[in-house]
């Protein structure tokens, strides 16, 4: 201990001297490293975002995208007085909440399942990434086929056991389309939280859970007391990521139902794309998109605040 105390300051002094020298000589070096990526992101994300914001205050048609008529808040007042848009908001909310709870909860379950040594665990972990890697378009294609009213495997198997949907309609039924899309989305989402949580579980000290087991604690109690506090920050980040990813998700819904039937699967992203490229109303589409980004921002802020508060409570 004494030795370390003696050595450490000297090392860090030397480090500071060297860094200081290089920092003086190359004050701008860091900005040279930053510049390419920063310029790129400003050009391809910042500028379009600003233009989107501007478009949301205009009436602009896809057929003549360079001609804008300034209309102030008209687009916003129009979408917020439209009951259809509230339907879209509710659908988005349901979609996001189910995705977050399902993917993180399911992922945690799978992670706990895989969190013990058994033969073939590496292979199991690798195979689990399949849904995550599969291209969305291919997933939409196979899901559409599996859910086909007459010949799809889902309906065939369900009607074997007497549970088939009426007329076999799934993706064309207002009752079953959203659940079907949600299940497909969850299938694609769950591997990521599962694998990240499996990694996080490695940080839980084995002695702790073993001691609890020896003391006769129930599994649930062991989980609450020993495991949960350690993986909670990871769960928080994953919940945020899943929320953002599910708000962004486009091709699965677009290709499976186009937001239909009767708007029962229309999320914000679907709504804005349809407004822009089917209704050719870029101004309205932009306004819907801006509302979507604001919702995402609120989610991120809420997540950060809740995480901070939890950390503070832990520190107490």
């Amino acid at each position: 201990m004494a030795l370390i105390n003696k050595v450490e300051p000297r090392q860090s002094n030397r480090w500071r001297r060297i860094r200081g020298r290089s920092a003086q000589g190359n004050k701008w070096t860091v900005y040279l490293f930053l510049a390419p990526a920063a310029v790129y992101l400003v050009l391809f994300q910042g500028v379009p975002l600003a233009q989107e914001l501007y478009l949301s205050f205009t009436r602009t048609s896809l057929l003549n995208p360079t001609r804008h008529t300034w209309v102030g808040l008209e687009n916003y007042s129009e979408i917020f007085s439209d009951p259809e848009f509230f339907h879209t908001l509710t659908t988005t909310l349901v979609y996001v909440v189910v995705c977050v709870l399902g993917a993180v909860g399911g992922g945690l379950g799978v992670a706990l399942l895989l969190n013990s040594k058994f033969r073939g665990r590496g292979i199991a972990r690798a195979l689990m990434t399949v849904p995550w890697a599969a291209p969305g378009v291919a997933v939409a294609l196979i899901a559409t086929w599996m859910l086909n009213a007459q010949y799809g495997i889902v309906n065939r198997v369900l009607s074997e056991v007497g549970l088939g949907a009426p007329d076999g309609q799934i993706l064309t039924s207002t009752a079953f389309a959203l659940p079907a899309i949600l299940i497909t989305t969850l299938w694609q989402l769950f591997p990521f939280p599962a694998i990240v949580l499996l990694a996080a579980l490695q940080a839980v000290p084995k002695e702790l859970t073993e001691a609890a087991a020896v003391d006769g604690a129930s599994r649930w109690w062991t989980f609450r007391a020993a495991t949960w506090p350690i993986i909670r920050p990871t769960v928080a980040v994953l919940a945020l990521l899943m929320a953002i990813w599910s708000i962004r998700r486009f091709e699965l819904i677009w290709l499976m139902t186009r937001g239909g039937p009767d708007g029962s699967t229309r999320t914000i992203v679907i709504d804005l794309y349809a407004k822009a490229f089917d209704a050719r109303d870029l101004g309205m589409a932009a306004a819907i998109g801006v509302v979507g980004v604001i919702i995402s921002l609120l989610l991120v802020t809420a997540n950060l605040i809740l995480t901070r508060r939890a950390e503070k409570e832990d520190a107490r």
Partner: protein
Amino acid sequence: MKTGTIGNTARILGVLIVLGIAVFPLYWMLTTALTSQENLFGDSLQFLPDFSQLSVFGEALSRGNVLQWLLNSFLISAGTTAVSIVLAVPLAYALSRFSFHGKVLVGLGLLLTQMLPEALLVVPLFSIFQDFGLLNSLTGLVLANSAFVMPICALILKGAIDGIPRELEEAARIDGCGPLTILTRINLPLIMPSLSAAAVIAFFHAWNEYVFAVTFIFDLEKRPGSVGLAGFIGELGTPLPTVMAVAFMFTLPAVAFYLFAQRYVVSGLTAGAVKG
């Protein structure tokens, strides 16, 4: 840990069920491709692939523009990987090793890029690309895709560089190396696993991308695989086994590379996304 035999059996059963769920749709894609048209629409399900139908893959490849689509996907993905990595490496290095004004701002900016839906920026990018003649071109897709996946690559690489002891750089600096030499000669060779993980992510982000491709590309022969494949949905002219064969060939590279790289991808993403 000591667990009872019953507990263990239940666990293995659980793992098998989860794996079955994870892999089944892909298996069903293959089985559908390897089922004759009559059997697909017959009275009973055919649960096993019929390998006498293997010629369907050859048919799929020779059909229309399928080969061209896959080639386009490859070109777009390779381009996106190159642009993303070249931009992400210096960004990651700056974020990991320097303290500078506006660092928090850069971090927030990267987070913001993760929140923007592609479908949102597709409208303004459409008009920007129109002005610069980037519509209906693979280059345009490379540029658009890179903007979305480069921040993820940067976060992965930052996590990796964070893990390299500074003493190594110190030694190189004493020997008179500049920052760029330190980055390319000292850091990059040490983060090869994370670098390849970032490359895999960038490549298959572009490979899987659909919104930009379907909006920005008009010519049939310039389509990437994702758009070509999506065109089969609801279209009746192409036999279903052929469609599924195309889908399978389009899916397989993505799945295979993730199987191979998932260890690095996950550790990279965990380091980047969860810790930072």
